[in-house]
């Protein structure tokens, strides 16, 4: 059964069927509140999943396409080795371009660590060559062997060493966020089942009267299902909107560029959290229905 169909059935469902079960004051409030809290958590988990997913994709995509050759050589040989390396790179398939960084660029790279007044000339700083790969990159092992032969001081670094753990961490984080989402859904189902069972137990007399006047189990279940589905939908909608507001107001750390870069939703992603209330309604529809039909089988 589609979510929409369920929701339509739950929302339109006959009012009369709803009235046959007396209203249940504070359990209703508690169910709504729990649904709101779960939805709030779900929105942040979703934001985390999306952000880590983006991070993993970007890191692996961007870093995969660039590499660095680092040349450490005595001052006299530096120029010769640099030329040799550039020649090797030019004739290697899978390399789009290679360009030695200028002194100014190297100074800029090192400035955060050593300050702007670095005397680059008097220090044995290795020369860096920025390499842009193409078509899945070069045959790294072969390239390393050729470099070793032509320029003993050159080391080809395709960033795998420090990229892979980061990408792994981001992927793991996304997996954990996914598991958290599933746990939130299961916890919501469990919570709704408990609340529905309590409501069913509290209304045992009402249910037995309904059975005696010829009500089918599905009719009685519907009264409870409608109630809990709407409650979960309403609560989750409130929780979702609050959480989306909070994400929206999250201070942007994009420029400073820490890990938190882009925690939040981008563009069409804003539609995803809006599905959470419907997911909550769907979960509570089935949880209540199962609980109701199971309980009803025990009443003659």
């Amino acid at each position, binding site marked *: 059964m589609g979510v929409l169909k369920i929701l339509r059935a739950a929302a339109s469902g*006959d009012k*009369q*069927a709803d*009235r*046959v079960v*007396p*209203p249940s004051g504070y359990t209703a409030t508690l169910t709504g509140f729990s649904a709101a809290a779960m939805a709030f958590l779900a929105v942040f988990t979703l934001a985390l999943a999306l952000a880590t997913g983006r991070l993993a994709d970007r890191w692996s995509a961007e870093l995969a396409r660039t590499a660095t050759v680092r040349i450490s050589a005595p001052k006299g040989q530096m120029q010769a080795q640099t030329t040799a390396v550039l020649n090797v790179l030019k004739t290697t398939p899978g390399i789009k371009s290679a360009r030695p960084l200028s002194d100014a660029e190297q100074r800029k790279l090192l400035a955060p660590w050593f300050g702007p007044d670095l005397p680059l000339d008097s220090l044995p700083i290795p020369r860096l060559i920025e390499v842009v790969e193409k078509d899945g990159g070069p045959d790294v092992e072969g390239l390393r062997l050729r470099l070793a032969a032509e320029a003993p001081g050159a080391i080809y670094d395709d960033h795998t060493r420090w990229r892979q753990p980061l990408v792994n961490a981001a992927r793991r984080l996304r997996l954990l966020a996914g598991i958290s989402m599933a746990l939130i859904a299961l916890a919501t189902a469990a919570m709704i089942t408990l609340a529905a069972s309590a409501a069913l137990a509290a209304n045992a007399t*009402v249910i037995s*009267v*309904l*059975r*005696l*006047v*010829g*009500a*089918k*189990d599905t*009719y009685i279940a519907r009264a409870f299902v409608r109630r809990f589905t709407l409650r979960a939908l309403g609560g989750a909608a409130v929780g979702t909107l609050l959480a989306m507001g909070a994400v929206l107001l999250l201070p942007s750390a994009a420029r400073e560029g820490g890990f938190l870069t882009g925690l939040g939703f981008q563009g069409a992603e804003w539609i995803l959290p809006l599905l959470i209330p419907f997911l909550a309604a769907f979960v509570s529809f089935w949880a209540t229905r199962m609980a109701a039909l199971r309980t*009803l*089988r025990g009443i*003659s």
Partner: protein
Amino acid sequence: MIELASAAFTYGGGDILTDLNLSLPPGSFHFLTGPSGSGKTTLLRLCYMELLPTKGRVRVFKNDVAAMDRDQVALTRRRIGVVHQDCKFLDHLSVAENIALPLGVSGQNVTAQASNLIELLAWVGLEHHADALPQQLSGGERQRAALARAVIMSPDVIIADEPTGNIDWEMAIRLMQLLVELNRMGKTILIATHDLNLIRNVKAKTSARVLRLHNRHLQLAGADL
């Protein structure tokens, strides 16, 4: 309409009813009598399928109750109107809503039946109490409301458990008159009561048979009543 064949029932202690045979043909009018605690209510509960016999068979509309699934039981109950000893109303619904309850649970449009409902309320003399809550009614009013609920689906069989239990003679006679009218319309009637005067009064008007529960068995009462 309803048949018991060597039926027995126990709540877990000793047998309340043993080797019981009963057949209610269409259009018949039966009284069920017997001392308090003899098992009248229990027998009626077997008839409307709230209980299953521990031995023997109960057949309702020719179907074995033990073989029915839950939905069949629900559908069959819509053809049997029951006035319970304790009325069994939903306390949070008004009298009119309680009377209309069988319509609602069977998926009928209650508002479309509003004129029927008003007629029925007038028939049991409760037209001014439609919006009252059940607990605001007197004992006799409750039992008339219960009768109205029992007949609203225009059932084939009407079962009443002490329908005159806590009402005065005048009112009891009126209520019995309603049941006699229903029987003349072809309904099968089964009434549990220990009020022998009431039985005599009705027997004068219609051909009712009297069954007596005694020592866990059912006997047909003689002409001494």
